[in-house]
């Protein structure tokens, strides 16, 4: 279970941080320059603040977007299962792209998302029967709780279900409330 802005990202404070903030969860002070992991929502706001021309906090791009991963995706977009690298590979990546205008990462995410996230998933349910669809919706949701593909799958799935129900022409007849 998760939400993109809860994901932790690495960075460093440019000044020491007192123990009372309990940044590491161990109740100790954090000397300046120490690498810490903060939830994205906090890191994102902290980088906006300056003190004497210096940022309070420098966010770093998480390792999941390192050159090895990028090159692998560029070499073969379908060969990398980004969801296994990180459940929020795509969503978190978009945040970095927007925040830091990383062009190459944007290109990589475009490749990764089009091929692995959308097209492949789409094939999986396109020809399922309504019953399989019903069952699979539950399974999918459980197994891939974190991924944005779940949201996309749901969208496609709900469309498909609405179509099947329309095509079967099953209009509910008004029912008698009296039992015989």
């Amino acid at each position, binding site marked *: *279970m*998760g*939400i993109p802005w*809860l994901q932790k990202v690495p960075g460093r*404070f*440019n*000044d*020491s*941080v*007192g123990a*009372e*903030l*309990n*940044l590491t*969860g161990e109740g100790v002070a954090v000397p300046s320059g120490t690498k810490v992991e*903060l*939830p994205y*929502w*906090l890191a994102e*706001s*902290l980088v906006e*603040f300056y*003190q004497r021309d210096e940022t*309070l*906090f420098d966010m770093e791009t998480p390792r999941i977007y390192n050159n090895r991963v990028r090159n692998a995706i560029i070499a073969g977009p379908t060969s990398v299962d980004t969801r296994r690298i990180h459940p929020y590979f795509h969503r978190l990546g978009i945040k970095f792209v927007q925040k830091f205008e990383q062009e190459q990462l944007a290109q990589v995410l475009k490749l990764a998302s089009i091929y692995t996230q959308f097209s492949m998933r789409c094939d999986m349910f396109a020809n399922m029967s309504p019953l399989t669809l019903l069952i699979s919706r539950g399974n999918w949701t459980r197994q891939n709780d974190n991924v944005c593909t779940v949201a996309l799958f749901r969208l496609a799935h709900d469309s498909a279900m609405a179509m099947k129900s329309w095509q079967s022409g099953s*209009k509910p*007849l*008004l*029912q*008698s*409330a*009296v039992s*015989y």
Partner: protein
Amino acid sequence: MSTFADNAYKLAKEAKRTMEILAPYNEDLVRSICREIRFLCSLIDKIKADMKSELQQNPSAITTVLVHHLTVKRSKRVLMAYHRQRVNRVKQIIWDQGNVLSSDNRIALSGPEIDFAKDYSELMTSYKQNFMEIDLGGNGGIGLDPPDDLFIEVRVLKDAGEVQTEYGVLNLKRGSQFYVRRTDVESLIRSGYLKHV
């Protein structure tokens, strides 16, 4: 104390998990988050009061104040989102079913939510008055399905004699079949005189 709004995390996750149902209102969690916000605000005030003009010279203190401040805002945002999601649920029930206070729902709703439901139902009803010709539905009335079968085919299961409808007189003899206005016969179908075919 907890790190960075742990309780707000919990509530955000709960909201996500219960997106499609009306889960019981999590009063305890909401209260803890409010308590946390009050506590953080008092910390901020205290630091500010202690340091006064020196605050600007102390990056560490500034960081502390800032993190607390951002945590307060984040928690508040989660509270808003949680309540907004529930409000949407409540509104859905009012439009579709009307009886928001069925026993199941009553258990799930908070006091303020029950008040909101009542007020919202009144607000919506007063807006509807402007369009009497159209009937906007709501409160369990007409839905938003296209009028596909305004008239329906029915077969008479039990003799019921002559029945006056808006559309004219129907002589309901067992075995006969009619094409009639749906709304005219709904109750006859429910009570077993007619069958929708």
